[in-house]
């Protein structure tokens, strides 16, 4: 019997705090939370019997008596990362949001608000996409979310700079869990870039279990970047669910670099004709990190297309998991779906599980997927070394190129170059260490 410490502790937290939780006074939120809590009590954290969770046991989380993070002061964490370029910066904290924006304020058509204070604005949206039925953390997040942000782009607005959302969870002395909730609405014909940035600190284990719901209306173009750089004491289990209307485009990047155990679900439903999406991601793990991605592209309408590229780099005793699910519903004809997933295993103890997963119920489709697991190309290494480049540098160069394929399209220049630098450092240190042995 696996321990249920975390589950009991969180259910207890819900029971004792339900009256104080945001939205307790408005019936529909209370009802939503109540149903979610029931569901969570029934199912708990997902186990290895669930197909999409079989490679990622959550036992390390189950064993910890997590309690919801206390309401923190509404100050930006001191070491907040540099701005990603000129961005509208938002810090999500336990007691609300903190905006860091130019003096002349937000541009017309962009709304950024604390989610827990704008619940009336998200009625009919909150919980619409992220259902509590599928196994995962949606239920517990819905029951307990105490922080979050609502970002709205009015129709036909084009943002002049990205929105940079910083989620920071900190715990000292006892294990804390944060349940941020994000709702993004990209109105008809709008365009914008949103970066969600996850960080953690403190000397005790943290758990972040965020849920993001994204509504992409017709003809909107939204770029969503998810950067997870939590500490090695952190657990991270997150979910992003999007719904796309006709002729909309969603580009998503998920960059999983930190945390000891991280799982991210990225799901999008192409619900209108002509909608397209591209999902890209990198998971780079070392030591004993366990990084899992699950993606699901639901081609629910005809003439929709999707593109997907995920790359994994696993060193030491790290483990990487990628499950890419593509579903083509009956009647959804004229579908194009392309998926590529590639992993590089750098050391003997590392392990990778990949599962590209196509489920197709229509015939006029063109779906391809390719998966590779391998090591660095010996010929390429030899070539570089024959030109006087050290083995360590050669390896780092090759891996940088491997990651660049995903990074190169990142819509924020400063973020792109920072990550590129970071990858090189990450890889450089990794190989240099081994070169000596």
């Amino acid at each position: 019997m696996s321990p249920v410490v975390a589950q009991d502790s969180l259910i207890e937290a819900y029971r004792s705090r339900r009256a104080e939780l945001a939205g307790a006074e408005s019936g529909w939120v209370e009802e939503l939370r109540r149903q979610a809590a029931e569901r969570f009590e029934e199912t708990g954290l997902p186990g290895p019997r669930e197909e999409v969770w079989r490679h990622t046991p959550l036992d390390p989380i189950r064993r910890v008596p997590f309690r919801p993070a206390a309401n923190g002061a509404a100050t930006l964490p001191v070491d907040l990362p540099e701005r990603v370029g000129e961005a509208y910066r938002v810090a999500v904290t336990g007691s609300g949001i903190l905006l860091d924006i130019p003096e002349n304020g937000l541009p017309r058509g962009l709304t950024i608000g604390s989610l827990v204070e704008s619940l009336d604005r998200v009625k009919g949206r909150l919980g619409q996409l992220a259902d509590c039925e599928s196994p995962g953390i949606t239920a517990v997040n819905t029951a307990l979310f105490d922080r979050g942000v609502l970002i709205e782009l009015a129709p036909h607005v084009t943002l002049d700079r990205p929105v940079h959302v910083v989620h920071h969870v900190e715990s000292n002395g006892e294990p804390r869990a944060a349940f941020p909730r994000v709702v993004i609405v990209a109105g008809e014909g709008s365009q914008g870039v949103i970066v969600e940035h996850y960080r953690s600190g403190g000397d005790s284990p943290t758990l972040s279990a965020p849920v993001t719901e994204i509504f992409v209306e017709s003809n909107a173009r939204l770029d969503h970047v998810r950067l997870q750089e939590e500490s090695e004491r952190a657990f991270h289990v997150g979910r992003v669910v999007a719904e796309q209307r006709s002729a909309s485009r969603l580009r998503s990047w998920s960059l999983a670099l930190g945390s000891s155990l991280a799982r991210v679900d990225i799901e999008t439903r192409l619900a209108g004709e002509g909608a397209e999406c591209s999902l890209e991601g990198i998971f780079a793990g070392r030591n004993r990190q366990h990084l899992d991605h699950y993606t699901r592209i639901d081609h629910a309408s005809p003439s929709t297309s999707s593109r997907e590229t995920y790359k994994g780099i696993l060193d030491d005793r790290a483990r990487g998991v990628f499950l890419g699910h593509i579903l083509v519903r009956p009647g959804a004809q004229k579908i194009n779906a392309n998926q590529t997933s590639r992993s590089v295993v750098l050391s003997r103890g590392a392990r990778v599980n990949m599962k590209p997963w196509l489920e197709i119920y229509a015939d006029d489709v063109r779906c391809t997927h390719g998966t590779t697991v391998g090591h660095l190309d010996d010929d390429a290494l030899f070539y570089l070394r024959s030109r006087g480049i050290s083995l360590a540098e050669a390896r780092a160069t090759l891996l940088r190129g491997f990651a660049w394929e995903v990074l190169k399209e990142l819509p924020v220049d400063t973020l792109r170059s920072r990550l590129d630098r970071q990858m090189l450092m990450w890889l450089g240190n990794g190989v240099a260490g081994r070169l000596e042995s």
Partner: protein
Amino acid sequence: MSDSSHDIESLANREYKWGFVTDIEQDTIPPGLNEDVIRHISAKKGEPSWMLEWRLKAYRRWLEMTEPHWPHVHYDPIDYQSIVYYAAPKKQDGPASLDEVDPELLRTFEKLGIPLAEQKQLTGVAVDAVFDSVSVATTFKEKLGELGIIFCSMSEALRDHSELVKKYIGSVVPYSDNFFATLNSAVFTDGSFVYVPKGVRCPMELSTYFRINAQKTGQFERTLIVADEGSHVSYLEGCTAPMRDENQLHAAVVELVALENAEIKYSTVQNWYPGDKDGRGGIFNFVTKRGRCAGRRSKISWTQVETGSAITWKYPSVLLQGDDSIGEFYSVAVTNNRQQADTGTKMIHIGKNTRSTIVSKGISAGRGQNTYRGLVEVHPRATDARNYTQCDSLLIGDRCGAHTFPYIDARNSEAVVEHEACTSKIGEDQLFYCQQRGISAEDAVSMIVNGFCKQVFRELPMEFAVEAQKLLGVTLEGSVG
């Protein structure tokens, strides 16, 4: 488009061509399963006592197991107590030659297009024909005997080569392996046993024709092939079954063992009754097939053409234990009407420098659901392991489904695993091109489909390749897109 889809439909509507029932007196026991039934089967076949113990162990284990439901197939619950677990044609002594075989039986085989009588002279194929549950004729036995090759039914093997069987049975698929394999271990009635001694290259293709005949009898074959050091054998398995209204369970187990430098090639053409076009009747083909490359530089190759059965659920696998061993899997699976197939392979890389190739072609037509499910696992010790997988699906008609669930589990930094897959339909431009050159839509589809499957067909022995192409044509008749 409308023309061609009409053609596809007419193809899809074709009736099962091999549906006929042969009337032969059957020696059966009442339906149901308990320890007495197992004792009865074992006693009927005059088995050694260790075999009975093994069966009972499996049965007791089976009672504790639950039927798995993870595959991507749907069917009504199976009532295991309504199955007849033993049916043998009424004959006191086993026939020593073809002349002693019931002429009615021989006619059945003739209808199937494998005249046993002619086979000796014409094809050079030795056939161990399984009619329901008991082998009735084995040809070329003497010739094989000269080389020391043992090719006989499992019952005979248990009588005459008990030690060999005891050594290898359950060594690849243990009695506790999975629900259906465990059931098979408890109640298997017959099957084939092949042993090729050291250094011998089997001079002919060994072949068995299975055929389910008696109403409501599940068939539980158990096949065991052992290739000793440096030997080579190619084995063909093919089957067609007569029309039947009730679902029949077919839960066979096939075990292959290849020792050092040995090579086994196992080819299957499966054409069990698929049920009628509304999905009534048809065979449930739930088979466990697994090979073990036990020695260095050994090789096991599976080739399968799956056109029949209401539900096909099988994953011929290879355990690549020996260093430098090779595993191959070539498959064509066709589902039409309401057929469902969940098939693929497992390649488990354990030894160094092991390599595996997987080529899977799925064709879905009508309301057929075709799933490729595969696992490539590279163990930490399997340095320089190499896998290449290609799984393509062809869709004919807008109500069918094609799915792929490949699993890759790599635990070695020196391994290379590649997987490619592609799903599409027959291009209208391709069809148009053929048709404007005077090729009918149906022929064009057949041509395109055969081209699609060529990579697999060319792995089949020649006689089978011809049959497979014909079968594919028949299965897809009326479903041109």
